[in-house]
């Protein structure tokens, strides 16, 4: 565990940046077609529940890291095993997000640059920040938060003022009933990005007030979730369902459509910067969570020693997890949510919380028994 303190506002900022990260880039809930924004909102509602579960687990073990409470709940061997699985999971996700951004940069801007070079530069920035500690990350986040939101509001104003929005593209709402939305929610929008806040279990202990975690977390999820829904709404209204579904990076395509008075055009590079900033935090937080987990598991004296080794593994993995963009996205939509996200973000935390509640109740009973006897 790192000895750092962050305020609840800083946690709020970090969660916002983390949620926006790759979800803003890739566009989520595309499976629901013109109702993608509804799928995001319904994903958010389940996301609130999941976040509350994570918070509740944390509130029983404040101030200690996830690996420690896993040992306390499941015993030494099984707890270690679960912790190890969590660490691998976080490391894998950091590699996936890194790959997402590497692919985006190659496809949209740097066709001749090897992806490895792009990811190396990005990964070393992230590793450096993670090594500096969560306090530094959080302060960086505060600065970039204003920057990213400035750009987002700007882009919103520019898109609406250039008359690109056609609300008719949203109709018919619920064309095939609520089932497609439910399906997209259950297979996609719950986990990416809302359930991914499970990585913050390693950061909660650093927050100065326990109560602040709940307020900051839920409000950050509300803000970023509604923003994601708005961004999908705008993507659909500007591009129409067909192009939105066929674009690997819909927001980028939307931004490219901006054309005001033959003067303000081709702003995509400007907004790519904002997307990359979000990606930086998402990769960074996953890597941080992985580092903290592995440090505790293998009793390393400081988590800082694990940053570069794990970072290099992340870098290698980002190239190795898939041979092409199609394979990468296919895995991300079909395999990862069902086999990794569902167990790690929903099943495991809920079972853990139930176990904790059961243990607490038994403890209370045991305490009451001697008193009555």
């Amino acid at each position, binding site marked *: 565990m790192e000895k750092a303190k962050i305020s609840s506002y800083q946690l709020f900022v970090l969660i916002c940046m983390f949620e926006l990260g790759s979800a803003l880039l890739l566009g989520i809930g595309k499976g629901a077609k013109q109702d993608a924004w509804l799928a995001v909102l319904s994903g958010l509602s389940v996301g609130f529940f999941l976040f509350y579960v994570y918070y509740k687990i944390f509130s029983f073990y404040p101030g200690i890291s996830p690996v420690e409470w896993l040992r306390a709940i499941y015993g030494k061997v099984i707890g270690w095993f679960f912790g190890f699985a969590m660490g691998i999971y976080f490391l894998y996700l950091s590699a996936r997000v890194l790959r997402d951004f590497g692919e985006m940069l190659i*496809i*949209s*801007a*740097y*066709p*001749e*640059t*090897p992806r490895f*070079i792009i990811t190396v*530069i990005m990964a070393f920035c992230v590793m450096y920040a993670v090594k500096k500690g969560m306090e530094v990350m959080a302060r960086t986040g505060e600065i970039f938060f204003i920057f990213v939101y400035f750009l987002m509001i700007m882009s919103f104003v520019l898109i609406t003022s250039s008359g690109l929005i056609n609300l*008719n593209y949203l*109709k*018919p709402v619920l*064309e095939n009933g609520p089932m497609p939305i439910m399906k997209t929610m259950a297979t996609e929008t719950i986990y990416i990005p809302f359930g991914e806040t499970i990585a913050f279990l390693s950061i909660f202990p650093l927050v100065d007030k326990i109560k602040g975690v709940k307020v900051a977390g839920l409000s950050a999820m509300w803000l970023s979730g509604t923003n994601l829904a708005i961004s999908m709404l705008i993507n659909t209204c500007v*591009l*129409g369902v*067909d*192009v939105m579904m066929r674009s690997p990076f819909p927001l980028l395509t939307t931004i*490219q*459509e901006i*054309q005001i008075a033959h003067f303000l*055009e*081709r702003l995509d590079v400007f907004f790519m910067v904002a997307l990359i900033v979000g990606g930086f935090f998402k990769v960074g937080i996953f890597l941080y969570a992985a580092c903290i987990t592995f440090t505790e598991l293998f009793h390393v004296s400081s988590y800082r020693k694990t940053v570069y080794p794990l970072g290099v593994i992340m870098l290698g993995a980002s190239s190795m997890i898939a041979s092409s963009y199609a394979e990468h996205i296919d895995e991300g939509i079909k395999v990862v949510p069902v086999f990794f996200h569902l167990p790690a973000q929903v099943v495991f935390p809920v079972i853990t919380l139930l176990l904790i509640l059961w243990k607490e109740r038994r403890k209370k009973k045991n305490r009451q028994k001697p008193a009555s006897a």
Partner: protein
Amino acid sequence: MMSSRWKTAVALFMASFLLTGCWSHKELTDIAFVSAIGIDQLENGHYLLTYQIVNYLNIPSGMQIGGGQGPPVTIYQTEGKTIEEAILASDQEISRRLYFSHTNVLLIGRNLAENGIYPVIDTFDRRKEFRNTASVLIARKGKAEDILQVMTPIDHIPTNKINKTLEDAEENVGGRIKTDVSDILYDFTTEGKEAVVGSFKLMGDPKKGGKQESQNQTKLDAYLTSGGIGILKHGKLIDWVGGQDARTITWLLKKTKMTSLEIDWAHHPRALGLQVRKTIIGMKPVMKNGKPEMHIHIRLAGQLQEVDVPLDVMDSKEMVRIEKAYEKNVEQQINKGIRHMQREQCDVFGFGEMIYRQYPKEWHSLKHHWNENGFAHLKVKVHADVVIANSELRTNPFLSNLK
């Protein structure tokens, strides 16, 4: 102390490698800005691509009269079995790499348009440099290469002329249309809507238009002018629409704001001219006994611009009668335009799309062969509402007071 200095030095030295910029940077002197691409299909099925490359040195700027020595644009042509192959072949011919980010016009030859433009749209939609805000046009007469060779006075870059002309004509006159790649893609992929595309044509002698000497006269030997609307069905050009029917299309696509309308009055042919300043169009599908119907409401407001008969303009009852006559005229025009498209069995107005958005459940049973079974027999009710706001700076025409 020393060691930390060394560290800083090494770090700064390493950073210098990052400062060089992009891996694959191209200097301005290595790229050729393509302002328009023309695509023709040859008889053997190959594609002939014509690139209009901007010669920035030769564009006269506002201050300096005359500009450079040569023409403002240069033409290169390459051929290939696929479009991609033809673009690659340009490297064998042109000293610079073609740069498509500033391409504003994609001109398609008539042959190719009749054979289908799906392959063209796909390659350019996919290209990362190419912007989907570029307009797509069909060369009305003959080949795209001929049009791109013609030099244009006043707007020295021909693409500027083409785009500005179409934008103006679309909004202020009607019957002309400027569609960009995203519009066409939307029409191709949306159920119940067929694509329309604008056109440009070459008037005069195509051989003379490419010579700079031809610019040294007031009446040009060859010049470019906008053409009517091309109707695409399944990506293939099936017909041209011009005149009032074309204006009906731009009206119903909500592209036209102003236009002029003339009617006969008191047995004088085309006696009254109305300058329309404002156009509001409402379209609504309605289900009647399980059958769709379109209700169209068009509201035009304008001023009398031409009065060639003795008339009391200040008589409000007379004006109401004129308005009524205009309303009838507009309704007839729109009905005629719609019937034209119904004969072509091509729903360019997007009536099917409106039904889909309003009545998604009913649409499921209607969508099969919509153009042939649904649109061709669709009942359309048109209601026009014309308001004559004033008659400009004069009231009654001097014809009323002729001695």
